């Protein structure tokens, strides 16, 4: 086979693979964000395994503090709406009200939008560092059972059958920022509060900024 024919076959194969992944995501009710501009990381910090952030840590001041807001929506009470561009998560309460939480959004959180449900909830979830982190920090365990030094924080709410999660953090200063790792994170005290209000099966809508 000539080199250009091989390249065409590879690119064709790659397109078919991407199409199948896209179709799978659509079937799951979520969609990759087509043509999304690469998100701007506003706080370029990696995970800090071993750093402790307790259950008491909440965002107390400013727009990213948990607060009751006016929120007009047709969605039912108990629905979660995540606006990644604004770094807010809304828990619909009904009667045009919502509880609004400040979130940090990791790279994975910018890569898809759509509708899922909370499939599982966990307290002090486990964490598996990615291989590239193990390369940089080879003293790390390859699996950390949940606890205060774990970057997943105090609670996790798993989204559908995806690998994505709403979770806590041991880096509360990243709330309100776009960071490199993780999905949707809240300060531990705030994620514990959200966790207590959200049921398995709750609807979650992820909204990305409109692409022009």
């Amino acid at each position, binding site marked *: 086979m000539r080199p250009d024919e091989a390249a065409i076959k590879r690119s064709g194969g790659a397109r078919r693979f991407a199409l199948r992944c896209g179709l799978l995501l659509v079937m799951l009710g979520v969609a990759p964000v087509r043509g999304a501009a690469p998100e701007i990381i506003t706080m370029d910090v990696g995970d800090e*395994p071993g750093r402790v952030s307790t259950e008491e840590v909440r965002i107390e001041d400013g727009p990213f503090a948990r607060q009751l807001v006016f929120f007009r929506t047709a969605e039912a009470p108990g629905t979660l709406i995540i606006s990644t561009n604004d770094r807010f998560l809304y828990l619909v309460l009904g009667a045009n009200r919502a509880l609004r939480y400040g979130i940090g959004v990791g790279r994975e959180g910018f890569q898809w939008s759509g509708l899922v449900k909370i499939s599982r909830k966990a307290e002090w979830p486990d964490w598996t560092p990615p291989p590239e982190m*193990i390369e940089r920090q080879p003293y790390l*365990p*390859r699996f950390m*059972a949940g*606890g205060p030094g774990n970057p997943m924080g105090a609670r996790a709410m798993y989204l559908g059958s995806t690998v994505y999660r709403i979770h806590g953090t041991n880096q509360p200063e990243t709330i309100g920022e776009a960071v490199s790792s993780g999905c949707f994170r809240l300060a531990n005290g705030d994620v514990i509060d959200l966790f207590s209000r959200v049921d398995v099966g709750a609807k979650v809508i992820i909204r990305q900024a409109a692409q022009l």
Partner: protein
Amino acid sequence: MSFKVVPPEPLLGKWGLASYRDEKDRARTEKMARVQCKNPYVIAKGPTDGVMMHVADDPDEHELALKKGADGKTYLGFNAPPGDPADRQVVELTPKVLVMKFVDPDTNARYGTFVYVRC
């Protein structure tokens, strides 16, 4: 300084590495450590009496010695008296499992107890 150095041969080889904080998580963490043999932690012999391993928060390997303390416990760490804050206490060592706990309370709180399962 005089303390007894224990032969390091039982530590050599490839291990799956995981950590836990609560004893209730020990059994499942050991199972997860076995899974981590896909990216094993390799312990090789050092140039003298010890093994080449990492200490907390340092990406470089150092030669560490297995040391017998006056308290009857075994420690792994630098050439310093057993029980030094930079050491780890060997909680359990069998041909298949190694369990170590950081002596320094802050490091222990941050990283938990390390479980190594032989691959």
